[in-house]
């Protein structure tokens, strides 16, 4: 692992020794700071994934592991349309949810960070509180809301707006999207809050004093500073959306499968750990490539 330090001021020879000492110190801090998280994720994530990576080159024969190395699992992924179909559905859902969540979450985070005054911690907690109720219960509640004899359909029928209930509300991609937007809102609001909060009111006021309209002050001061939070929320939302299993399983009705359901089918129906591992590896490679691109946008100013 190579780690470079912050730019050093080495122009004065007299200061060179001190600078070297400070550089060593900085390196120690860098390594020391990264060590816990890197070691932890290596041991408890990279190693298990490494094991499954090895599995992905093996096969299952008669429910026993055949350790002959083969690319068959990977070939199957790119030749069987069910994987591509599942992936595309996941991709669509994840993209849509990411955009909608962002639009829903930004004003709320802004309101909590800037307008809620002392009540902001309470409001922040209130954003997350619904999620302390089991996911199953929330999904079942959505079923009661969206079902054919559910609250929404009955309400609409009662007001005479519709004659027959909407059956597409539940057990459909619509239901998956509603469930996911609901599930991921806090993932957006919280990082956004954390970054909007650091935008000083005085900066906004200063911009307005310089005759900027509130709109312009927002776009030129608040938004750029909140951007990392927005990106973090978007990255979370998108990645979670791609890999999500539970919400599609409970609300989607199982008639069209997202990629996580396809992967699960591999493990459940066939007991095919190598096959399931191979799809996961491809999915992970895709996301990591995407991340590597996206993360450039949220690079720190200080590093430049």
């Amino acid at each position: 692992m190579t780690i470079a330090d912050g730019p050093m001021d080495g122009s004065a020879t007299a200061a060179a020794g001190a600078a070297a000492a400070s550089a060593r110190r900085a390196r120690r801090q860098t390594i020391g700071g990264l060590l816990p998280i890197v070691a932890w994720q290596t041991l408890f994530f990279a190693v298990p994934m490494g094991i499954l990576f090895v599995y992905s080159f093996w096969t299952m024969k008669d429910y026993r592991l055949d350790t002959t190395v083969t690319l068959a699992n990977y070939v199957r992924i790119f030749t069987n349309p069910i994987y591509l179909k599942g992936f595309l559905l996941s991709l669509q859902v994840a993209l849509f949810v990411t955009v909608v969540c962002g639009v829903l979450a930004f004003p709320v985070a802004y309101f909590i960070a800037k307008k809620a005054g002392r009540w902001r911690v309470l409001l922040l907690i209130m954003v997350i509180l619904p999620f302390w109720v089991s996911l199953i219960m929330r999904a079942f509640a959505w079923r009661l809301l969206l079902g054919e004899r559910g609250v929404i359909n009955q309400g609409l029928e009662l007001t005479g707006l519709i004659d027959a209930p909407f059956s597409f509300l539940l057990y459909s991609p619509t239901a998956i999207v509603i469930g996911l937007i609901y599930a991921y809102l806090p993932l957006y609001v919280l990082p956004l809050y954390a970054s909007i909060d650091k935008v000083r009111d005085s900066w906004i006021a200063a911009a307005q004093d310089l005759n900027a309209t509130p709109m312009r002050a927002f776009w030129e001061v608040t938004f750029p500073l909140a951007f990392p939070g927005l990106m973090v929320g978007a990255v979370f939302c998108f990645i979670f959306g791609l890999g999500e299993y539970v919400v599609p399983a409970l609300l989607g009705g199982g008639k069209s499968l997202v990629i996580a359901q396809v992967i699960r089918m591999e493990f459940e129906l066939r007991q095919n750990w190598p096959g399931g591992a191979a799809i996961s590896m491809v999915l992970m490679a895709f996301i990591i490539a995407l991340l590597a691109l996206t993360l450039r946008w949220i690079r720190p100013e200080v590093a430049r």
Partner: protein
Amino acid sequence: MTAADVPMRRHGRAATRALAFYAGLVFAFLYLPIAVIVLFAFDDKTVPGLPMAGFTTQWFARAFADGELVGGLATSVRLALCSAVLATAIAMPGAMVLAWRDVKVRTVVMCLVLAPIVVPQIVIGLGLILLFRAAPGLIGEPAIIIAHTTLTACYATMILYSRLLGFKRSYIEAAMDLGASDVRVFVEIILPLAAPALVAVLLLAFTDAFGEYIVAWFVAGFTKTLPIVIWGSMRGVLSPAVNAISAVIIAVSLALSVAAQIWIIRQTRAGRA
């Protein structure tokens, strides 16, 4: 105040009101399913659904009498607290370095940190259960804490990182180069700066660890967390007792949060007076 200021202020106030209204709508969306859950906790039907049958509090009595539910709740709270604190603790130093130092391997580290959220949980569960073959003694509570820390450390690092990014270099230099008073600098400068993100991170990590089922099931051994108990009763019909315990969780946490908030406001007022 000049005449020109007035419309702008008024405009600002209207905008704030619009913003508050919008936030109100989003909060309504967030609490709609919760309202449904609470509503059916008081309904006499054994399987929640419309039309409602009649008012009852029997489900609350049953929930409290159900050792599995109450025990699962206690276990879940305890384990989720541990993994939230642990995830935040390992994420904070990493986020500081990533945000403030010119780390060449930043992208690699970030991918490593973030990757767990894309891998389907069943795969992580299987991977971890294979890993724990090397240390089967950890199966149970320690393994659940480890698993959830791994899953939540991603949010933790990323949220802290995005918060720390915007701080001026001078702060950081001061914070990191003040020599002997490292701890003091951390406590007096960095912690307050990072506080909003720390709150957000602890909340999110706790929430995710509290509700996660699939990975937990694989590594839990015979330990029963609340989600494991609830998923376990899925094959029958979920009893409204689960609605009742959910209602209690919401009510108690709301009450505690409001009380704490009021207390804090009183304290600050008293402090100023």
